């Protein structure tokens, strides 16, 4: 599979010219680094949200087991 060419669309206020150019090697490396960091951050945030939801569900189940009603649990 051919690797997709990444481009920037640029407008120069001084010349009034618009160009579409491929990213330089340095820009491409920077772009890929942002993508990698973002994916890692998203995975960490998703894991944290899922862990919190699981802990909440577990706590609610334990409270229900000792006799609290759903309304009482929601009021905590």
């Amino acid at each position, binding site marked *: 599979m051919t690797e*997709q*060419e*990444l*481009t*920037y*669309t*640029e*407008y*120069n*206020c*001084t*010349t009034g010219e*618009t160009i*579409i150019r491929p*990213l330089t090697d340095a820009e491409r490396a*920077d*772009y*890929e680094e*942002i*993508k990698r*960091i*973002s*994916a890692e951050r*998203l995975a960490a945030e998703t894991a944290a949200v899922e862990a919190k939801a699981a802990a909440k569900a577990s706590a609610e189940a334990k409270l229900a087991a000792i006799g609290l009603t759903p309304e009482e649990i929601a009021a905590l």
Partner: protein
Amino acid sequence: MAMKLIGTASLPSGNTSGSTGLTITGIPQTYKDLLIIASLRTPRAGEQDGVGFALNENSSTYAYIGIHWNGGVTNQNTNYESMWAGAMHASANAASLYNNHEIYIPNYTNSLNKSYIQNSVANSSISSNASQLSMTANVYTTNTNAVTSFRLQSATANGLTQYSAVWVYGIN
């Protein structure tokens, strides 16, 4: 006070593959402030994405403080270090939806660290609780050069969708 359109860039119909950002260069140094208006969307999976904003095409980190309303939860954020500057629609939202984005940069020609305010909204076609609103004041801590260019892109490096557009105005 006078305001003049000094530049605009957009992604034409069908120009989606590989389009990673909109850049304005050669900004004249003859105005007091800059006002940027943008209408953006990304092909990223999901409902929304962050807008990446790079002054002088420098994606170095900076700090912001502000209010960000995300999915029914209001956050007050400080010192979030990334090139994040607001929210835009992603592919799960209706294809006609593009964000509304304003960025104001005062004193863009001086030699101090650059600061700006930004307001953006990306409402949702899926549910009202999936909309994102953002109002932030941002400051770079290592960017003292006069602003001669900037780039708008996906903060997560997922590209921009056709018809995404930006306009920049000089303010005197």
